[in-house]
Structures are given as C-alpha cells and as structure tokens.
C-alpha cells in the first residue's frame, strides 16, 4: 500500500523531468560519423571514379538491391556503365561498404530520403556519385594496384618495384 503511494508520488515528479522527445524536423538527432545511411559512390583524389565494377558489393548485398554493369574506357580502366541502388529495399547493413576493395561505395549519415513516388527511391549512378572522397582520403586504387592501365605500366605504381624477369639468371 505504501509502495503504491510512493510510486504515485515518484511518477508525479516525472512531470517536471527533462523530456526525452526530440522534436524531429526542428531538432535533429545526433548522427555518429559512422552512422549508416544514404549510400554514395566516391571519387579518388584525382577525380576519377573509384568504383572498378567488381560486383563484390552486389554479391555481398543481402537484399540484392545493387545492380551494375561493368565496362572499360580506352585506357583499360574499369568502371560501372550503370550503377543502380534501390533504396526502398536497402536495409543499410553496410555489407557493400565492407566488401568494396576500393572504398568506392560508402554509407553516410543521412536518412532523410522520403519520396512520394516509390520509383524515386531507385538511385542511378548520377545520383550516387559525389565529387569528393567521402570518409577515406588519399586512396587511389589504380595508383597502388599492380595492374597495367593506359598511362601506367607494371611496376610504376606507388611502393611497387619493377617486375623481374624470371628467365634471367643475373641477380
């Protein structure tokens, strides 16, 4: 009986407590830097597309909402012909970002993507591609990878020694 009266009093005191409600449109919740929200495609420091169209993100995606098609430019550099993410299906798990070998695909702290028309939730490459490097700076896949593309032969990458000739006996 006494405990009931006590709890009445304690609950009454809650009238004067601080509110926990965040009044959303005027007041925004804090989103951590690693918050997983809208997905972007980033560029390398030289302004080229980072994505090499390896399909790893599409394979890792548990809900199969990434569609892309690989193509090559005249230098032999791979890039996606189209890159499409259906955000009405995406569960923002971040697996695509983990799978990506080039830091191309990244999740950023933004969730305000509501649309009246469901079709508008499908983002094309133009919508996804940003001009900067996103969360990971200074990384340029083609500069560090040992692959030969136009303008860069084998052995010319960063921290890469020139290839050896296995048939040559000289040290």
């Amino acid at each position, binding site marked *: 009986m006494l405990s009931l009266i006590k709890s009445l009093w304690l609950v009454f005191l809650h*009238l004067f407590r601080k509110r926990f409600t965040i009044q959303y449109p005027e007041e925004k919740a804090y989103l951590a830097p690693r918050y997983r929200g809208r997905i972007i495609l980033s560029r390398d420091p030289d302004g080229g597309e980072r994505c090499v169209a390896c399909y790893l993100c599409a394979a890792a995606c548990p809900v199969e909402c990434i569609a892309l098609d690989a193509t090559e430019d005249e230098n032999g550099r791979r890039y996606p012909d189209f890159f499409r993410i259906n955000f009405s299906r995406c569960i923002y798990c971040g697996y695509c970002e983990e799978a990506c070998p080039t830091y191309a695909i990244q999740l950023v702290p933004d969730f305000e993507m509501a649309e009246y028309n469901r079709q508008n939730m499908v983002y094309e490459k133009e919508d996804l591609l940003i001009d900067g490097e996103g969360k990971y700076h200074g990384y340029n896949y083609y500069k560090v990878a040992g692959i030969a593309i136009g303008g860069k032969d084998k052995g010319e990458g960063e921290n890469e020694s020139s290839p050896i000739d296995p048939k040559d006996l000289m040290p």
Partner: protein
Amino acid sequence: MNPTLQTLAVTLGILFTLLHVAAVLIWVERRLLALLQDRLGPNRAGPLGLFIIVADVIKIFTKEDWIPPFADRPLYVIAPAIILLTALVGFTIVPVGPGMVVLDLNIGILFFLAFSSLGIYSTVLAGWASNSKYALIGGLRMAAQMFSYEVFMGLSLMGVVILAGSLNLSEIVEAQRGMWFVLPQFLGFVIFLLAGLAETHRLPFDLPEAESELVAGFHTEYSSMKFGIFFVGEYIGLTLIAAMIVTLFFGGWLGPAWIPAPLVFCFKTFAFILFFILMRAAIPRPRFDQMLSWGWKYLLPLALINLIATGALVLIRAD
C-alpha cells in the same frame, strides 16, 4: 428566472459541458500520460496539439462500422448506448452549484448508485453479444468485478449519509460548510475512490479490457462509432466518479466566495480526473484474483468498520 427555464438551461449546460469534456479528455489524457512518462505527447496538430481531438473524431466517424456476422445483433448495437445513457443519467443528480442541479432528488445517492450499477449491462452485454471468447471473458470479469466492488461502494458512502443526515446531494454539500467530509470520512473516501475506479473500469482496474491479456476485452469486436461511444461513456463515467467524490467528500461547489460556484466545482472535479490519469500512469494492473480478494477481504470489512464506527460516534455525540 422562470424555474422551468432555469432547469432547461442547467440541463443543457451540463450536457454540453459533459460531451465536450469527454472529447477534451482524449487530449488531456494523452498529453498528461506523455508528460508523466518524460515524453511530450501529441503536440503537432494545431495549438498544443489540440486539433488531435478533431482528427480523432473524424477518424472514428469515418471508420467502417462493422458488425460481426456471428454477433447477436440487437444486443450488440444496444450495448454501447447503455454505458453512455447510464453515465449521463447518473449526472442528473450532481449539483454543480447552489440550486444548479437537473434533478433535486431526495434519494440522490441511491439514484447514483442504481445508475452506475446499471452501466454494467453495457459491458456484460457487449461481451456476450460479441460472441467471441475474449469479449466474453472481459464481460465476465466486469460482472465479477462489479458485484464485488458494488457492495462496499454503497457502504462506503453511508458514513457520509450518517454525518449529513440526508441522501440528497445538495444537502450533503451544504452539510460540509464547516468541514469537508474527507477528514472525518477518510477511510470512506479511499474505499469509494477504489470502488469508483473499479466501477468505471479505468486503469489500474481495467481488467475487463486488459489489452495485454484480452486483446481489448469486452469491446474487442467493436469498431467505428460504437467503439467511440464506449470511449465517451468511459470518460463520462470517469467524470461522474470524480464529480461524486468532489460532491460527497470535498465540499462540492463550496469554495472561496469570489469564484463562481460551478467553476469551483469544475476545478475540483478536474483535479480528480488528473489524479485518475496519474494513477493510470503509476500503478500496475493487479491480477484478477488479487483484485477480488482485496475487495472482499479488506475493503468490504473496512467499509463496514467505517460505517459502524461513524454511527457509534454520531450516537455518542448526540447523547
């Protein structure tokens, strides 16, 4: 003023206020519950979120009014009307100010008790006519709860009747000019408060509805305005119990002379409604057997002791 005209004005005034109070309580309850839970509650639609009432009413009116094919049609339709009717009729004997009462009955308390117990037909019939197991269990619980709490609801008021020497509510209020009856009749007040809550099946005594156990209890099968009427009936019943507590124990419309009597009355009643909402927020729902055993084992004997002690004291004083 012409007495007929005055009665008419009072009747319409009370009816008008009551129906609006029932609507406004939707908002009051939501906001207050939210505040008690460190939230803000509905505050978007209109000033302070008041338009939520309009939105609610529109919503409830435009829902499909569906009568389940397995229900007992006539009873099913009548049931919601009964609760509203009995609660409204019960209000006729409540004096909101000196001479401002619809029916100045000399057996006011009996009339109130009679109509508040008639309200049980609403829930029991609703439970029965819905022809579904959850509704039926809800209805049965209501019946059992009502029978146990009805008994000492009346008994707890008899102390007041002994002190005032009358069953007429206006005279009871007048008798409290010296001292509010809550002081000599504190036990009676607590018992009446609990019984009244059980009678209106408000939380924490909402066992007939008990969302977590019985879906929605006796009104599980009700939709649209029929459900709305249950809601309004519950709020008016709540207001009625608050008004009765104020009239019987807290001096009714008696208050500082510079405030109009009806305002004093409304203010006190509203304070009790807020207290009921606080109880809803703070106290968990008891188990059904606990509730019945409290009623029979503690509250009923206490009410009897209170009655006998009050009678004895009054007799000793009279000598």
